[in-house]
C-alpha cells in the first residue's frame, strides 16, 4: 500500500481519537474531523453516533460535504440538543485551533489583545463549555510555531492547568484526548499534562516536529509512526466516505 497519502494518514489519526468511546456523539468540526468520526464508526467504533453536520443523526455511512446523499436518520440533534448532550457529557468533539499551547489551551477567538485584536477569529464558540464537560480533541492542518505556541492569546478551550484551577468537577471531566496535526499525533499523558509527541506521520521526522513547535514537547524514547489505514479503511475513505477527496483541501502546504 505504498500509495497511501498523508491526508489518509491524518484521517486515521483523527478517527483514532474516538477509539474506545462507545455510544456517545462523535462530533467533528470541519471536513477532516467529521470524516475521522465517520471512519471510526465504520471501522472500529460501531456504537458512535455521528451527525450530518446539521441536525440529524445518521445511521448509514454518509459521505462528507454537500451532496444529495441518502440519509438513514436515527435521531434528531438540533443545536439545543447538542448543548444538552454536551453538558450531560455524552459527546467527544474534535475542533480546530488557531493556537494551542503546551497544556492544551486552545484559541479560536482572536489574535492579539482582546480589546482591539490584530485578527478577530470565530469567537470562542462552544470551546469553554466543551472542554469543561467532556473529551475534546483538536485537528490542526498547518503545524507550525505560530499555531503551537508557548501561550495562547485568548483561552477559548481549557487546557490542563486552567481546568484544575476551575474546580474539582471540571478537573475530573476535562479530557484533551488528542491533538492531530499534519505532522503527527499528540496527547497529554504525562505527569504534569504537558503535550507529548505520541507518533509522527510517515515521512515526518521528530526533529521536524520539534522545529515546528513553539514550546518543548515531551518526547519519550523512540517515537512510533502513526498507523496506516487498513485496506478496508482505505476503501471506506476513498470510495465511501470521501469519494470527492475533500480531505485533501484541508491540508495546506
Amino acid at each position: 500500500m505504498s500509495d497511501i497519502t498523508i491526508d489518509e494518514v491524518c484521517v486515521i489519526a483523527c478517527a483514532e481519537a474516538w477509539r474506545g468511546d462507545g455510544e456517545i456523539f462523535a462530533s467533528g468540526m470541519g471536513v477532516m474531523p467529521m470524516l475521522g468520526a465517520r471512519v471510526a464508526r465504520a471501522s472500529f467504533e460501531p456504537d458512535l453516533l455521528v451527525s450530518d453536520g446539521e441536525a440529524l443523526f445518521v445511521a448509514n455511512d454518509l459521505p462528507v460535504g454537500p451532496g444529495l446523499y441518502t440519509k438513514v436518520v436515527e435521531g434528531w440533534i438540533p443545536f439545543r440538543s447538542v448543548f444538552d448532550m454536551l453538558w450531560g457529557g455524552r459527546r467527544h468533539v474534535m475542533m480546530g485551533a488557531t493556537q494551542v499551547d503546551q497544556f492544551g489551551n486552545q484559541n479560536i477567538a482572536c489574535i492579539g489583545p482582546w480589546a482591539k485584536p490584530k485578527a478577530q477569529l470565530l469567537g470562542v464558540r462552544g470551546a469553554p463549555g466543551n472542554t469543561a464537560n467532556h473529551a475534546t480533541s483538536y485537528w490542526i492542518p498547518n503545524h507550525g510555531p505560530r499555531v503551537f505556541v508557548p501561550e495562547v492569546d485568548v483561552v477559548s478551550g481549557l487546557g490542563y492547568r486552567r481546568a484544575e484551577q476551575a474546580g474539582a468537577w471540571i478537573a475530573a471531566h476535562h479530557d484533551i484526548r488528542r491533538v492531530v496535526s499534519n505532522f503527527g499525533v499528540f496527547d497529554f499523558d504525562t505527569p504534569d499534562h504537558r503535550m507529548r509527541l505520541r507518533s509522527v506521520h510517515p515521512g515526518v521526522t521528530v526533529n521536524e516536529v520539534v522545529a515546528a513547535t513553539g514550546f518543548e514537547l515531551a518526547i519519550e524514547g523512540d517515537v512510533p509512526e502513526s498507523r496506516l489505514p487498513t485496506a478496508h479503511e482505505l476503501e471506506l475513505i476513498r470510495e465511501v466516505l470521501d469519494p470527492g477527496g475533500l480531505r485533501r483541501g484541508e491540508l495546506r502546504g
Partner: protein
Amino acid sequence: MGDKRLTATEVVTELADGMTIGVGGWGSRRKPMAIVREILRSSLRDLTLVTYGGPEVGLLCAAGKLRKVIYGFVSLDSIPLEPHFRAARQAGTIEAAELDEGMLQWGLYAASLRLPFLPTRAGLGSDVMTINPWLRSVRSPYADGEELVAMPALPLDAAIVHLNRADARGNAQFLGPDLYFDDLYLGASSGRRFVSCERIVDTADLVSAASVHTLKINRSMVDGVVEAPLGAHFTSCDPDYGRDEAFQKEYAGSAASPDAWAAFRREWVDISEADYLAKVRA
C-alpha cells in the same frame, strides 16, 4: 382576534436608537434579513445585538448601526470568518461581549423565565471570564459547594426572527431541521417581538403541511408578523431555499475596501425591498 400583520418598515418604526435587539437564526442560517435590510435603510443607530451571529452582524457593523454585539460566534458558515465584523473588531469601533455558545442560550433562557441568572460550568477557567468582567460566579448552596458561573439574564428590548410559515395572529412554524434558539429570543424580549416568514397561511394550513412539532412558537410570544418572501436571503431558509453562496461571496468581498463596500451598498443596500427581490430573482 388580533391580526398582527405588519410590514418590515412598520417593524422598524417600533425600534429606537440604543435598543438591545435579539436576532434569531444561527450563523448564515435563517436570519431575519428582510427586517435587517429595513434597519439598514433606516436612521437607527447605537444598537446592541444579541445573537449567534451571521451576516446581519457584519452588515450592521459596516453600516455603522451597532454600538455593541453580544455573541458566541460570528460566522458565515461556508465562509468561516465574517469580514465586516472582523474589520469592526480590529478597528475597535464596536464593543464586544463574547460568550460560550451555551452561556448565550442560558442568558436568553434566564430572561425568558424571568430569572436573574442560571448556573453553568461553561466559561469557568476560560478567558470568557476575564474578557467579560461583568460575569459573576455563584456557589452551590448544597453539599457539593461547587463554584459555578451565574450567567445573567440577557433581557431584550426587541426580538426579530424569521420562520418558514406563520398565521396572521403570530403562530409561527419552522419547517427546516432546527428551530435554533428563535423561541428564546422571543421569550427574552419584554415586547416588540417580531416574526417574519416566507408566507402567511391560514391557521388550519399550519398542521396540514407539517407535524405539530414544528409549532414551537405560539401567538402569545409574538407582537407582529411580517410576510417577507426571501426574508432570510442570502442566508439559508430550509426547505424553502438554501443559502445563496454566490451572493454571500459577493457580500464577503465587499469588505475588501471602502470602495467595495460603497459599491455593494449602492447595489444591494440603498435600494427598496421590491427592487432587492426583483434583482435577486432576476
